[in-house]
């Protein structure tokens, strides 16, 4: 093979390598958890039921020890995601099954329920407007949408729970708290939501890992018209 041929092969190999690197980087950057669609078939004026759960460790995937949220699809299937398509100007009835334990809040201000309908949430059926994180099992997580001024603390299960769930998705046979509240979606747009309890175990200030990863303790409300 002549010098030109060898150069052509080298050039082609180099181009393929660059293409592979670019493809891998873009695939990584564009990877995202699935979005659960609550808009298909939704009739205007009717509320949407959104059921989610929090678990102390997801139990599978690349980070099995990470704490996480999961979402129940309209078809009743649990999906590891925090991205939801929701209809605009619609009442969202949230049911949150909290399977994780809690602790006193770093900032007790987050113990206040704000932005929900009636500025309350029910905890195992009991309405509350403030949770004293020092006087209960503590707060494990919050469900907070900062741009909409909505925040609900999620009371943890007892640290001495006899039947804690260790692998998601958890079912109601395990110890858990049921937290319910409602809020109205605003106009179309993307609204980030997150947990404000620094629950990233073993990360600086508890704010790394799952706290910094969409699909675990952060997500988006994708509100559509």
């Amino acid at each position, binding site marked *: 093979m002549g010098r030109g041929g060898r150069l052509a092969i080298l050039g082609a190999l180099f181009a393929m390598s660059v293409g592979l690197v670019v493809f891998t980087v873009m695939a990584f950057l564009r990877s995202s958890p699935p979005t659960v669609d609550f808009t298909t078939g939704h009739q205007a004026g009717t509320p949407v039921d959104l059921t989610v759960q929090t678990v102390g460790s997801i139990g599978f995937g690349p980070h099995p020890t990470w*704490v996480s949220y999961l979402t129940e699809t309209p078809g009743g299937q649990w999906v590891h995601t925090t991205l939801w398509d929701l209809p605009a100007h619609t009442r969202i009835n949230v049911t949150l099954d909290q399977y994780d334990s809690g*602790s*006193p*809040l*770093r*900032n*007790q*201000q987050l*113990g*206040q329920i*704000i932005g929900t309908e009636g500025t309350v949430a029910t905890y195992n059926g009991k309405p509350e*407007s*403030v949770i*004293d*994180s*020092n006087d209960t099992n*503590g707060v494990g997580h919050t469900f907070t949408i*900062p*741009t909409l*001024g909505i925040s609900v603390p999620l009371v943890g299960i007892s640290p001495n729970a006899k039947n804690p769930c260790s692998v998601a998705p958890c079912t109601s046979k395990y110890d858990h708290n049921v937290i319910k509240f409602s809020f109205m979606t605003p106009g179309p747009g993307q609204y*980030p939501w*997150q947990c*404000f*309890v*620094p*629950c*990233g*175990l*073993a*990360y*600086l*200030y*508890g*704010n790394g890992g799952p*706290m*910094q*990863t*969409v699909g675990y303790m*952060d997500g988006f409300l994708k509100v559509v018209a």
Partner: protein
Amino acid sequence: MSPRQETPHFRRLIAIWAVLTVVLDVVFYFAVGPHVPPGAMSSSASGQQTDFIVLFMIALPVMLAVWVYMAYALIVWRGSRGGDEEPEGGAKARGHFGIQVGWIATTTVIVLGVFVYGTVELIVPAGAGGGEGPNPIWTPTSHDVLPIQVIGQQWEFTYRYPTFGGFETRELMIPVDTPIAFHVTSLDVIHSFWAYQLGVKADANPSSDNVAYTTASQLGAFTVRCSELCGLWHGAMYNFGRVVTKAQFLVWAQSTERQNAANTKLLPPFSYTYVPDANGADGGYYPDNVDPYSNVEQYGATSPSK
């Protein structure tokens, strides 16, 4: 050609430069000046706006001197094919002592003047809206200062009003024509409190009380942003504050104090700094040399022994 008949390039340059400088400075002052950020919503903002205008009006003549000379040289002294030979040495290539001294003297005066002006502008408006640390050198002359604590945490700011029972809220409301002392701190990493239209910017460091002053002079909304890259939702760490009348502020503060009373009782005593909770929230973190269960400094934590 005799020296008397030579083209008066220097006088021409000075004339062009002077006319352009006067015209553009006046146009800038009246047409652009009122729109220069961050506006004039507060004492610190209007001070910064004035500073930007003054600095631009000082810089403009210097910039014009360079541009006018360059344009003049390109047009008047450009070479042409078949034209005169390029001068090589001689009188035309010699430096001009007067111009050199004048240039150095002028730029020195400008730089020293800007140095003095900038220093005075930091002192007169009580720190010009910047964070002055826990022991501010430049404080407002008024003794009637409203303290508001700004608490940064990943990823939101909350505000505590110690003169109204110490309630804490996500809303930032301030009264007009009242000196405000923002006490900025953080519960985790470094954030930066930037109330853009107020011209206030102060870093939020954990275990540090960074004080910044301002006095709002206009009613309306302003934007608060974190201006220190602080993690995943840094870009979403913003909210909006409002400047309201003193009467409206009083009504808001008293009603919020009542509404938040249940939660305010659960907050730690007001302190200018807090140590992040030691026993809470998996991964709690605090300086090694600080008692995380101190009655004064703990923030929401309860000692397991109590």
